[in-house]
């Protein structure tokens, strides 16, 4: 049984009877048992996965109508609600939270006969980019387990990269899908803001985050998008995509397309190997008929600062509900005093969440909003203006997904500011709502490098076409695990 096939290949193989869903899912669960001790991608497993796959095989045999996933094993980041399943956000705070409802993406995937093999690891409440801030321990990079897998959707990237599932759903607030995709050599895609419903995604910074797929191929990402995108009456921020088919014409190529190389994302601090890979990718794209040219978006200088101020502000509000009254811990009624219980509950947050909650209490507060929060909003709107201007001239923008290579576990954990700066290449797409994708591009000293493409709002189809074209130029070694 080859567990390394793409999602689309899986559906073709099951459909044609080449393989059974049950066999594939059973082998996948076996694979998880064998490798996850080393990788720690999963926080919980679905012990009914094989039974569910068997039911799907039965449906196929009896000629019943079958969903487009054909029992495909998918992992889900543990900040997305699956009914009757523990959804912890990798936090002690939600250790016992059993979601009483399905996220919209889950409902849609269930309708398409997907099988959720388990919930995967993340930085606590998706705050971080190394998955080291999980309250249940870090995940490890399958390319070298001494290294971080990136984050916050580290478990998603690891599980796809190490063949513990065929595809995964993560969430991307400032690069949380693309960063681990880059570090683990998978495709990671953050769609246009509003394209995928956030209903059932536990909010961290709701005004900029999106659910996104992590897959083996660009085609798989387009396939996943076909299944989960579109208007949702449960999320007022969703946009109508007119049931676009993102797979159709994915091989249209990029001949004649104008691509801007973002100057601020290949500047100071970039790893030479990453810069080399980026330049190589640009020349490949030119070889395919694209016209590439450098462009400067000087607001990017301030984007990380603005990003942390805005996300901390929203996080401070979104996480305020974890006050020990409804979540957290049993407490005796005696001596109950609301404020002291909030204080007690807050002690259960890990260091990164605590850091951002403190920041989130400060930057929008009455005396300081003008200096921080309102200024961050100004940067955001200027950045939107700049990037919209850029898209008048260019069809796409290009940059490395992360300016550096994966680092060792523990290497930067006590240096939050240097961690923050790694987000420089990914936060712009979130602050501006634009779609962006990371494509596995190179391996340097056994560690992956991803290349990022960014498109204008609702140009997701164009973005996927360009990513597909670039992907076809790449031939990478196999993950060593």
């Amino acid at each position: 049984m080859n567990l390394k096939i793409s999602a689309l290949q899986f559906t073709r193989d099951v459909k044609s009877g080449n393989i059974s869903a049950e066999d594939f899912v059973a082998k996948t669960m076996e694979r998880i048992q064998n490798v996850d001790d080393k990788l720690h991608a999963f926080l919980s497993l679905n012990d009914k996965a094989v039974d569910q796959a068997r039911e799907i095989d039965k449906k196929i045999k009896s000629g019943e109508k079958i969903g487009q996933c054909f029992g495909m094993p998918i992992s889900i980041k543990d900040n997305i609600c699956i009914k009757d399943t523990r959804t912890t956000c990798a936090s002690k705070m939600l250790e016992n939270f059993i979601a009483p409802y399905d996220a919209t993406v889950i409902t849609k995937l269930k309708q398409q006969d997907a099988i959720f093999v388990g919930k995967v690891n993340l930085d606590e409440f998706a705050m971080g980019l190394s998955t080291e801030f999980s309250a249940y321990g870090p995940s490890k990079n399958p390319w070298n387990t001494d290294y971080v897998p990136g984050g916050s959707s580290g478990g998603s990237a690891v599980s796809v990269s190490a063949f513990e599932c065929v595809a995964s759903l993560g969430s991307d607030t400032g690069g949380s899908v693309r960063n681990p995709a880059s570090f683990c050599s998978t495709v990671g895609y953050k769609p246009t803001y509003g394209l995928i419903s956030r209903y059932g995604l536990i909010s961290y910074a709701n005004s900029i985050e999106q659910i996104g797929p992590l897959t083996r191929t660009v085609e798989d990402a387009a396939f996943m998008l076909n299944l989960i995108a579109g208007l949702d009456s449960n999320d007022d921020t969703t946009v109508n995509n007119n049931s676009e088919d993102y797979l159709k014409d994915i091989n249209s190529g990029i001949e004649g397309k104008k691509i801007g190389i973002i100057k601020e994302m290949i500047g100071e601090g970039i790893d030479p190997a990453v810069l080399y890979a980026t330049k190589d990718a640009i020349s490949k794209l030119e070889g395919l008929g694209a016209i590439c040219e450098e462009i400067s978006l000087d607001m990017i200088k301030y984007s990380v600062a603005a990003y942390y101020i805005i996300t901390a502000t929203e996080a401070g509000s979104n996480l305020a509900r974890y006050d020990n009254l409804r979540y957290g811990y049993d407490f005796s009624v005696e001596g109950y005093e609301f404020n002291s219980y909030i204080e007690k509950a807050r002690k259960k947050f890990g260091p990164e969440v605590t850091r951002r909650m403190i920041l989130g209490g400060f930057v929008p507060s009455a005396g300081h909003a003008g200096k921080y929060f309102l200024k961050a909003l100004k940067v955001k709107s200027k950045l939107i203006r700049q990037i919209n201007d850029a898209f008048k001239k260019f069809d796409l923008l290009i940059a490395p997904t992360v300016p550096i290579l994966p680092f060792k576990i523990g290497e930067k954990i006590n240096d939050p500011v240097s961690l923050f700066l790694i987000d420089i290449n990914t936060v712009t797409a979130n602050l501006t709502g634009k779609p962006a994708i990371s494509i596995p591009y190179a391996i340097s000293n056994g560690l992956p490098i991803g290349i990022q493409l960014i498109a204008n709002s609702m140009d997701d189809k164009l973005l996927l076409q360009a990513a597909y074209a670039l992907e076809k130029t790449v031939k990478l070694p196999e993950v060593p695990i």
Partner: protein
Amino acid sequence: MTKIGLEIHSQLTKLESKLFCSCKANYREFEPNTNICPICIGLPGSLPRLNQKAVEKATMIAMELNCSTPEKIAFFRKNYFYPDLPKNFQITQLNIYGDTSVGGKGIIMVGEKKIHITRIQLEEDPGRLLYEGSSEKNQITLVDYNRAGTPLVEIVTEPDFENPKEVREFLNILSNLLENLGVSDPSLEGAMRADANVSIEGGNKVEIKNIGSFHDLEKAVHFEITRQQSLHSRDIPIIQETRHWDDKRKITISSRSKEEDLDYRYFLEGDIPWVRIGNEVKEKLKAEMPESISSKKQRYVSKYNIPVQVADVLSADKFYSNLFEEAHTKENAKEVANIITTDLMGLVDTREKRESSKLTSSHLKDIVDSIQSGKIARNSAKNALYEIVKTGKKLSDIISELDLGNVSDESELSKIIESVISEEPQAVEQAKSNPQTINYLVGKVMQKTKGKADPKLTLDLLKNKIS
């Protein structure tokens, strides 16, 4: 000079569902914590889903209060910790970053006085806290989220009021207006709540929070003015503070909490996109709005020649004006208005009496018809009304049961007239020389028939017999 400003919280009780989910807006009949869902108790991953009807109703209120209405409205988060607040923030509106609340500046006339509206905002009601236990020490706080997320409109006024009487008049006008719009039933428990700020003689402003009804609002304002005046007369400084209304003891008490120091860290609610309320929407809403109280009043005066004072009373109250609209014709309008305002209002002056009343508009129509055709005397109408309100029986049945019908039988009436003529020789002589005084004799006949003699027939017969 005394200055009073109000913040009125009015639930949109006539809406089907809550502001951000499909739980019932009318939470009153549920067992605790049974009118709830992932959205209104703020479960992780849930998102608000804006109730468009609530936006429409709130916009109608803004238009009715002559407020400016912006092209686009936005929602903000007001962040503070309180156990009745499921998310520990309230989704509300704000005008700090541009006019984005449903209503901007407006004016409402209270008699000759202009009361300025500062803004109108749409927001969610928190849950309710219930306290159990005898003393403060072993008190238990219970949380009921059935109310959480109920649509609430906050109407903020400038400190234009100078005394409790103006406050009361304003509240009457406002509750009539909200009821007439069909957005709220002000008489429901907890449907109308308020905060007030009061200052005297240019002194510090004191906020009174937590006033649970309009009735108490007037009392609270009165109490606070008296309290401040008493301090002032003794040269004790009035400190700027927040006080709570204690509705059991009917006094205001200084709040121990530092609520005035709270920093709400307002910011835009990203889960709710801006809502465009363009001119076409406003026109559509205007067309859907029921006729306003003032235009009703004008119509009653100009079309039916109803006296201004009567039209005033009639138009302000939806219960009476509905009765009027259904019962009146062009010919009987004045009489219908008259019966309602002079006879009916005293009979159904409370909510309970209105609700148990069996009177319909067709009863009212019958009564007026019967008066106009001389079937019953105007005096008997009140007795008939009393019976109808109580029993709902048909007017004709009541007339015969209670013998309310006019004495219009000629021979019967002639006998009575003859006895009056023999008893009042002096008056008869006077009437012969001065026909104007015949009314005295008519009155005597009425006395003998307890007001039931047909007045026209009586007069005719009297004239005949005297001449």
